[in-house]
């Protein structure tokens, strides 16, 4: 069960980050804090920052450096055109998958 949950979280985290950034640009700390509120995802910095780096490298996110009250400058992440396209595709697939699974579960309960 634990292994299944771990794999599911890994796949969903990228989906959640892209959806979170679809609302507008944000910086790493804030992204981690907001996603950490979803307890089921068990988000930590060690899972979010590597995904942010990979998504930036792949061209889904762009990074803007802004001032910070203390320490190094903040790195603001936002979706690129490619990223918007990807999040829209992912949402479409998620809706279809979710709908199908719900129908399957409902049919099993009913039958």
């Amino acid at each position, binding site marked *: 069960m634990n292994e299944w949950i771990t794999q599911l979280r890994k796949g969903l985290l990228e989906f959640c980050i892209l959806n979170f950034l679809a609302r507008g640009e944000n910086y790493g*700390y804030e992204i981690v804090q907001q996603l950490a509120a979803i307890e089921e995802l068990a988000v930590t910095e*060690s899972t979010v920052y590597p995904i942010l780096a*990979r998504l930036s490298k792949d*061209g889904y996110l762009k990074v803007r450096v802004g001032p910070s009250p203390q320490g190094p400058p903040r790195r603001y992440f936002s979706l690129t055109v490619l990223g918007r396209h*990807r999040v829209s595709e992912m949402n479409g697939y998620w809706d279809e998958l979710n709908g199908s699974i719900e129908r399957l579960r409902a049919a099993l309960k009913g039958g």
Partner: protein
Amino acid sequence: MSEDKEIQKAVGHYLEKVAAELTNVSPDEKDSILQGVESHIYEALEKRSSGAPTAADLDFVLAEMAPPHSYAQAGGIPSPETGPAPGAKVPRSAIIGAILVPFVFLMMLLVAPLVNASWAAGLKLALIFVVPAAAVSTILGFNAISKIRASKGRLRGMPLAVAVAFVYPVIAFDLLFVWCAQVLGEATVWPNRGYEAFVPVAAVLALALDVLIFWAAWRWVSPKPARTAENQVPRKFCKYALIGAAFAPFGIALLILYVTNPSLIHLGYMFPIRILGVLSPVVTLVFGLMGISAIRASNGRLIGLPLSVGLVLLDMLVLLDGFIIYVMCRETTNIARQLPDGWPIALTVATATVVTLVSVTWISIWVPRALWRWASRPLAAGEFT
């Protein structure tokens, strides 16, 4: 040591530990992750401490954060297998197929004298022994290929499997190719020379095709590179290029009609072609240029650059080459008429023809090359932003 320096040192120490765990990411990603984590630590420190942060605050923040060893799985998704794992085995079907290959060759050698002696007997033996054995060997080869591909690195021996799977189909292809070439050659190209003259040429061609077949087969069985962000995006053909291409034939048709039979152009039913043909040069030029611009700005999401460049070239080359040919023909005729008696007119016309051909060829090579370089040049900083 001041508190600030102590904090910086402790942060640096933590980042070093994180960096040591980031072994499966590229240097750029590593830098990006470390910058993010460093920024995260200072943000957390600022949230925790009301004034200047202390070492105790940092200890608390670092204790709350994920331990450095948890970065070992950075990226989350492992890269696809690119080669066989240590201890991978060769599938049995590949081994049996490989043993069958020389056996089939041996049978072919044994059957060959009988083919010369009697076609019927040889064919019968070939059908009974050689063909089934070759078919079994081929099936075993393909079976081995699918097993190795599905094994995700647990099985090896792909080159052997490919050789076993393709050796007999390739031999059959070679024989068929040489036979067809011989029949065709006897019937058309060299009616009286036949087998001896034509077969070596066909055999060399067949060998070249064999190399291509094995190369294509190897590409087919080799693992495909991981999909990158760029090729995950569905690419669309540039609409401007398509619109320009739709207009181009009307211009060409009008030009051909003008050169071959101008009286047809003025017929009533030719009106649409006349209008579209007249509009064609402007439309193809404008839409070709718009296509180039749109494709360059699309960051790889639009395709059709060669077509767009071709549309722009169509007008440019027809105009430039046409102008040169027209001027050279007119001037050569004028000069030839005014030449004094006894002057070698043929030499003059030949010289003018060579000059025209060289000019037209040079323009037809240089202009497309220059336009392609211009259209496919790297985007300048700030271009299209």
